[in-house]
């Protein structure tokens, strides 16, 4: 056999040998994967923007030591990683350079939950000592200053800078003064380190990695702020484990400490608990509409949610005596207004109207509120002090001018509409004033008569997250779950009308709505 053929045969042997070595290394690697103490997963895949590598590596080490779950981190450019998630349908978590990529992920239904971590502010980066004495916006336009920035088409920072400066008419001159548009802020910073530029627009947090650079803050850039958020991949096969790690990263006494150390302005995350327990106070009438959603939330998050259903008057009294739930879902706005310190901001989620419940076939021929005042009728209503329904009923009676007549026939006042339905079923009442949703499951033996012409007979249900909740982020995700289209279907099936508008809902997901602001946005440390 000639030498060439011998060499070819040898290379085949070498090829096989190398493949065995690689396969051996790989299996040894997988054997070292520890057992998760939380019993959820042995390994998670995180798609992480390369710019977050330093902070994420330190968090990964801590988490793996504490729980034994291996975190496999795929680093890359944010958009490339998002495309990988879209094409491969793999991965558990996604941490892009800024939140704009999360928004794209949500639009494409690739991201299910979002946990806010920190904010970054746009600054002008210059070499340490600021040799070109750049202090104002006009300095950036000087002919002796080589300015670089990231492309507005590729990086969120420049997109926001462009929008902000276009409003003041300064963008065009800045673009003209820019000698190069780079793909990301790291390239901009690298240009400065190498000496290819004198000034560049970057996020302040990025500069913690560059000891040779310093930041110059400009008023024109003061509003250019981007969020850093961690997303849970919608197609993750282990959402509980993914959320466990995500909560760890977003916890104020765990992952956020690392973010703060790396120069980020961190959000006020939740206090770390391996299995957090949320408490939600909710009006009794909401139970059928929200209970299934809360159960699904518990399962997905791997946490516990204690539900306290009762008349809103009673719930308010409990809160005033010191009980502080993480979230409160009131039967009517009036009962939210009574605890403004605990819940300064709320979002109206649904509405429910008062109706007159009568026995099937309406044997007493009741057609309006006035008929309830007929002599001999046994009428049940909600308790005015104990529940929103009772308070609303009294208002409606007053507005309808029938309060005196009807109250004469009221034989029972209960703290919830369910109790009235039960009493109707036993035949102890001829009619009851309750929510339409109370009658949703009682169509076989009850009829509902609509109350015409009285706006006040409609109750609006607001939801709020407690301002002092140590679990505000988790509670916010519960809120988002309660605002989801699946939840809307549950509400509508139970006779509620959906109140929250899509804009508010979408905004809340990314933390821009009232609820998002109260729970997240204003909690920066």
């Amino acid at each position, binding site marked *: *056999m*000639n*030498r*060439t*053929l011998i*060499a*070819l045969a040898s*290379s*085949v042997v*070498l*090829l096989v040998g*190398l*493949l065995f*070595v*690689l396969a051996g*290394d*790989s299996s040894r*690697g997988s054997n070292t994967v520890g057992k998760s103490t939380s019993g959820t997963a042995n390994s998670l*895949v995180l798609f992480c*923007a*390369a*710019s977050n*590598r*330093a902070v994420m*590596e330190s968090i990964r080490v801590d988490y793996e030591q504490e729980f034994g779950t291996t975190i*496999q*981190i*795929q*680093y*890359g450019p944010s958009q*490339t990683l998002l*495309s*990988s998630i879209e*094409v*491969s*349908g*793999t991965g558990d978590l996604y941490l892009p350079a800024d939140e704009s990529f999360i928004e794209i992920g949500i639009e494409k239904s690739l991201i299910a939950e979002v946990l806010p971590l920190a904010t970054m502010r746009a600054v002008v980066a210059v070499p340490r000592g600021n040799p070109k004495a750049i202090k104002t916006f006009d300095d950036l336009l000087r002919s002796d200053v080589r300015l670089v920035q990231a492309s507005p088409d590729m990086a969120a920072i420049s997109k926001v800078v462009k929008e902000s400066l276009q409003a003041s008419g300064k963008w065009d001159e800045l673009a003209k003064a820019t000698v190069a548009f780079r793909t990301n802020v*790291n390239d901009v*910073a*690298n240009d400065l*380190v*190498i000496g290819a530029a004198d000034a560049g627009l970057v996020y302040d947090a*990025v500069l913690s*990695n*560059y000891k040779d650079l310093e930041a110059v803050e400009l008023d024109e850039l003061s509003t250019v702020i981007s969020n850093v958020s961690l997303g849970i991949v919608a197609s993750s096969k282990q959402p509980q484990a993914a959320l466990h790690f995500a909560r760890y990263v977003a916890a104020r006494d765990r992952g956020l400490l690392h973010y703060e150390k790396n120069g980020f302005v961190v959000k006020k995350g939740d206090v770390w608990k391996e299995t957090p327990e949320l408490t939600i106070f909710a009006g009794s009438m909401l139970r059928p509409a929200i209970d299934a959603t809360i159960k699904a939330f518990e399962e997905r998050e791997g946490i516990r949610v204690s539900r306290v259903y009762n008349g809103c008057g009673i719930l308010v009294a409990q809160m005033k005596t010191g009980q502080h739930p993480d979230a409160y879902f009131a039967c009517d706005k009036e009962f939210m207004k009574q605890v403004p310190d605990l819940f300064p901001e709320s979002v109206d989620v649904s509405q429910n109207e008062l109706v007159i419940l009568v026995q099937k076939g309406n044997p007493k021929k009741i057609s309006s509120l006035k008929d309830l005042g007929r002599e001999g009728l046994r009428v049940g209503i909600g308790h005015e002090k104990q529940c929103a329904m009772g308070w609303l009923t009294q208002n409606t009676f007053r507005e309808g001018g029938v309060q005196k007549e009807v109250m004469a026939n009221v034989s029972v006042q209960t703290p919830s509409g369910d109790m009235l339905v039960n009493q109707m079923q036993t035949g102890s009442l001829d009619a009851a004033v309750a929510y339409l949703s109370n009658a949703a499951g009682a169509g076989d033996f009850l009829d509902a008569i609509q109350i015409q012409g009285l706006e006040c007979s409609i109750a609006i249900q607001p939801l709020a997250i407690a301002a002092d909740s140590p679990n505000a982020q988790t509670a916010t995700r519960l809120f988002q779950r309660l605002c989801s289209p699946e939840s809307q279907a549950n509400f509508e099936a139970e006779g509620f009308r959906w109140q929250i508008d899509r804009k508010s809902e979408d905004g809340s997901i990314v933390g821009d709505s009232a609820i998002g602001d109260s729970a997240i946005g204003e909690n920066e440390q």
Partner: protein
Amino acid sequence: MVQSLVTQQLATQQLAKMSSSDERIGDDQVKRLGQPRQRSDVPFFLAMGGLSSCFILLIVLMLAADVMFTSFADFRIALAKPEIQAAFKLTVMSCTVAAIASLLVAVPLGYLLSRYRFPGRWIVDTLVDIPIVLPPLVLGLSLLILFHLPIFGWELERWLRDDVGFGVTYQWPAVILAQFSVSCAFAVRTMRVTFDQIDPRAEDVARTLGCTRGQAFLIIAVPQAARGMVAAVTVAWARALGEFGPILVFAGATRMRTEVLSTTVFLELSVGELNSAVAVSLIMVMMAAIVLLVLRLLGAGPAT
């Protein structure tokens, strides 16, 4: 073995006889051209050398700048990192596997494209070049799509992972596959040119002496293509070393797992570790220089 050597010798002698007349013509031409020189060759060498040195100088200056930018301490720190050690090991092994696999495919494919005119040849010829002209990220994306495209509910990656027990995407095989996809195209191109330059008459003569096509290929063509094969392995290995885009998309850049040196440079750059990035780049340069030197020495040895 003796028989194959005899066949090869006979074929070479026959070929020498057939081409002896051509050689005589060549000698005459040389004599005519060999007149006394009337002008100096210095301008020729100055022009040629000057133009050539532009490129050489550029490379030398770039390397010098890299060396000046970093320090020995940066090298020591970079080499001490377990992540970079793992990336180094994976780089060497994956590049070698990709280069050998490329050669094993390139030799037969290059030979077929060079020697035969078969239906659809131009299509094959064009397809071979596609990985060369395709943007690297697109190649990686295409690989990713290939492994995750559901076809009537069946998906290649799921099948490999669940049924075969051998996942590819975001694992080390993805690194090799991404490197191979590009390296092989260059290797095929090199082998094709190699076989184009080898006169097929020796193989034809061998066949007239009783060799099959296979024997003619193995005994005559392959030994003559030895240097071309070394060149193909060199190109494939070097190409695999520099591969970045497809690996990033298809294999990811997981530390200690799918990180190769080219992705290390990217990761270090992304966090502002310029010194470390340059140190790793220079390590890659040294690796490439050593491997290319070894292969060149192998290529300079006797072909058969």
